[in-house]
């Protein structure tokens, strides 16, 4: 949405824009029914969450979800970067594997879950595997594309300076693919959150996803809305942290047009 460097405070939209959301919540709070199965008032959300926390449901679920998400994303980053680099430097392999990789990337994530369940059964490892699978493709494909497109002149410079393979990789290839890697992570991040929740919802393995489904099945509607808000907050925080990190890393790179969405 903003062009230039990502992650600057000046890019934040004006705070007045929060008005519609606040007005909506405020109206709901004032005019909403005291008890409702469908539209519980916002203040009930908070108390429902507190109750869930006291009952010992919320904490472990939150940890399970965040841990799955965090570990899976890290694994996806490492695997995607390593495989992407390997693939990018061998153009013949990339061409041969490209249709297969594009198919894997294009396979809708929800469909992976039943396949994994069938093959592996309901185990904690299932969660990690599925989220890693979904997150690795955007990173791998982005890194591979960038690794194959490293500026040839820079490779000539490396040869002129008698760099070995390791030095060329570390000083030239890795920094050159860094922006593409971050773009892949930017895509993989929300995807990983969604798929973590999805797996939990489908398999009812412990996590926020299964928590919200069981709340819905037992008509604890305030808790459902509360968890929805919680997920929103988590998503927002993770996104902001990523944007900050990305901005810091990319500060030394020439300003690129900042693509969003």
């Amino acid at each position, binding site marked *: 949405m903003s062009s230039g460097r990502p992650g600057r405070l000046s890019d934040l939209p004006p705070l007045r824009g929060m008005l519609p959301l606040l007005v909506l919540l405020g109206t709901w709070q004032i005019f909403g029914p005291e008890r409702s199965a469908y539209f519980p008032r916002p203040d009930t959300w908070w108390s429902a969450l507190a109750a869930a926390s006291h009952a010992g449901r919320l904490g472990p679920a939150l940890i399970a979800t965040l841990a799955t998400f965090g570990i899976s994303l890290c694994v996806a980053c490492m695997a995607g970067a390593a495989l992407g680099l390997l693939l990018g430097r061998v153009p013949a392999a990339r061409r041969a594997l490209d249709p297969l990789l594009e198919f894997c990337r294009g396979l809708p994530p929800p*469909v992976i879950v039943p396949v994994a369940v069938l*093959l592996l059964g309901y185990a904690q490892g299932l969660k990690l595997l599925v989220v890693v699978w979904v997150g690795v493709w955007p990173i791998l494909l982005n890194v591979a594309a960038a690794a194959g497109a490293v500026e040839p002149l820079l490779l000539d410079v490396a040869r002129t300076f008698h760099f070995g393979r390791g030095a060329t990789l570390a000083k030239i290839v890795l920094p050159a693919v860094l922006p593409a890697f971050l773009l892949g992570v930017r895509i993989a991040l929300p995807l990983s959150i969604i798929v973590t929740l999805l797996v939990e919802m489908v398999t009812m393995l412990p996590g926020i996803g299964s928590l919200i489904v069981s709340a819905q099945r037992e008509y604890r509607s305030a808790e459902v809305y509360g968890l929805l808000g919680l997920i*929103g907050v988590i998503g*927002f925080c993770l996104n902001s942290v990523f944007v900050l990190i990305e901005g810091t890393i990319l500060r030394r790179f020439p300003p690129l047009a900042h693509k969003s969405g």
Partner: protein
Amino acid sequence: MRARRVNVPGLVVIAGLAAVWEMAVRSGAIEFDYLPAPSAIVGGGWALIASGDLFVEAAHTLYAVWLGWMLAVAIGSGLGLLLGLSSAARTYLQASLELLRPLPAIAFLPVALLIFNFSLTTELVVIVYAATWPVFMNTMGGVMAVASRLHDVARTLRLTRAQAVANIVLPAALPAIVVGCRLSLGLSLVMAIIAEMLGNPHGLGHAIMSELQAMQPERMFAYVIIVGILAIVLNAGLRRVGAYLLRGHPPEVAEHV
């Protein structure tokens, strides 16, 4: 259109993989109880077609996708146009939208289930919420990128606001809008499947889950592959449509759509 060279090594890899898979299952080398051989999957797929199940389920999913996508495109482009053209609208709406954007649409599914129960409406709510974002973001971005550049042109030619929007802004923003619609379509399919797996007991998503519970791996895998093919076909189809719509634009633009 560029001439398409057939990616022979690519095809070889896929065919080779299928062959290895077939042999591994037949010889019992792989220890997965429920991994069917490719030949069994084809058989399962054929059974689905013969019994008509495939068409029934696919029709439901496609109907939901179509409806949801149309709604998403309408809402998204309308909102995008509004915020793209009016800085006042941006000032008073953007922050709220930025807060909502990271909210995963899947989290709305339980809420929709609470209110609408197991129904098509639940499915549509989830699809529309998720699929609106790409269209909205891309439309707004496209319109804003154009408006600044060609604003002076419109003033020089003394066009009215409506004329400027219709004749300059929309055509110039069209590539971005088309990309947004294409992303939105893929997302609609994904959300439809999710909703059907958890919320609305019809369609391909639901079929996959029931085959899973019925322990019918061949049929389940057949459905999975069909969903994958559907995703590719929808994407490629919309690419073609996009290329046609953008046939007046320079080639670099049309190709990236």
